[in-house]
C-alpha cells in the first residue's frame, strides 16, 4: 500500500486497526514496516482517503 503523505493528517486511524501492527505514526511521519501484508484494512480506515 502507498501512503500519500501530502494528504495524511498523521491521525493514527490506520495504525489503530492494522492487524499486523505494521504502521508506525509519529508526530509528523508515518512508516509502514515489512510486517505489512497488503490487507488494505488501513485504506478503509483513513478519514482522508490518503492510502491506496
Amino acid at each position, binding site marked *: 500500500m502507498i501512503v500519500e503523505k501530502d494528504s495524511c*493528517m498523521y*491521525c*493514527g486511524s490506520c495504525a*489503530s*486497526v492494522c492487524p499486523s*501492527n505494521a504502521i508506525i*505514526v509519529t*508526530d509528523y511521519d508515518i512508516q509502514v514496516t515489512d510486517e505489512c501484508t497488503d490487507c488494505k484494512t488501513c485504506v478503509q*480506515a483513513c*478519514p482522508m482517503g490518503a492510502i491506496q
Partner: protein
Amino acid sequence: MRECDVLVVGAGPAGSMAARAAAPHCDVVVLEKRAQIGVPKQCAEGTSDMLFEKLNLRVDPKWISRKIKFARLVSPSGVRVDLKEEKFKQLKFGYVLERKKFDKGLAEIAARNGADMFLRTRYLGTNRDNQHIIVKARQFNTDLTFKTKIIIAADGIMSQVARDMGLNSILDIRHLESCCQYEMTGVDREDCIELYFGNEIAPKGYAWIFPKENDTANVGVGILPTKTQYPAKHYLDKFVQWLGLTGKIVEVNAGGVPVSGPLKKTYADNLLVVGDAGHLANPITGGGIHTAMLSGNFAGHVAVGALEKGDVSEKTLKQYETQWKAEFGRELDLSFKGRFILEEFTDQDFDDTARFMNEKGMGQLGAIDLVRFAIGRHPRFALKFASFLKP
C-alpha cells in the same frame, strides 16, 4: 537510567489526570510524543460540566470556548428535536472546550503536582525486569531509558504500550468511527450542539456542528468505514455544502474513534490502560473526554494504592477496572448495544422517530417509550432491544 514509580505514556486528558492523581504521592514521569500538548486536536470538544465536579477540578475559564445550553437532533428531512427538558439534565449544560488550552492546562496541573514531563519523547518499547518495567524512549535525538513499577498506557487509539505489555489492543475495523472535521468561521448558532442523522449525510454515524467562540464552530462527520463507499472527508465536504455554510475553514482535523466498547481487560501486571487506549469512548456519541478523565483519575489513585501496598500485580490493579466499570461501565455497555440498533435505522426511521419524540414531548418520553415505538415499527428490532435492556 531514570527510575520512577509510575510512568505515563501520553499527555492527553487521561494521562494528565492519572499523573495529577499520582504525582503528589510518588515519583511520576510523563512521556509525550509531541512537542506541544493538545495539538493537533482530534475531537469535537464537547463535554458536560458535571464531569468537573466529579473530579473536583476547577474549570479554568480559558478552557471553555462556548457554554452549551441544550442539544438538538436533526433528522434527514430536517425534523428538529431539542433536548432541553429537565429530564435530560446531563445535556442541559455543557461546554465546547478549547482542547489546545484544556489539554495543556491539565498537563500543567500534573506538572505542578510534581510529575516530570518529557515532551517530544517517543515511546519505543518495554521489557520486563523482575518486578519492574524497563521503558525505552527517544527524546529529540537522544535515547532514554526508564525503570518503573507501573506503566499507564494513555497513548490513545493506537496504544502501542498496551500491545507491548501483552494486551490485544488492535481495534477491529468494524468498530472504528472514521472522522473528519473543519473548524470554520461564519457559523452563527445558538448555544446548542447539533447532531445530524441520516444515511446520506453520515452513514452509520452522525454529522455535527459544535459552536465555539464568536462565529466559529467545529463542523464534522463520523462514519463507519466498513459500511461506506467513501472516506469521511468526502461526506464532510458534502455536509458543508448541504448546510450552505459560506464561512472559511480555519482548521482541519481528522481521527478515529474506538466504538468497540472497552478492551476485554484494561489492566495487567504493572499496567493500567486509560482513555482511548482502553477504547473507553461512548460507542454511540463517540464522546471520550469524560471517560478518559475519569479513568485516568481512577488509574492514578489505584497506582498509588498499589505502590503503598507494595503489590503492583494485576490482582491489585484489577480494582482500577472495577472502579471505572462502576462509574460508567453501564453507559458504555448500553451504548454499544444501542449502536447496532441505530445502524439499522433507515432515513424514514430517523424522521419518524424524531416526529414521535416531538409529539410526545421529550419531557414525558422515557427510553422505554422509544423502545416500544421502534419495536412497533420493526418487529425485527425486538430481539436487539431485548439484549439492549438486559441489565
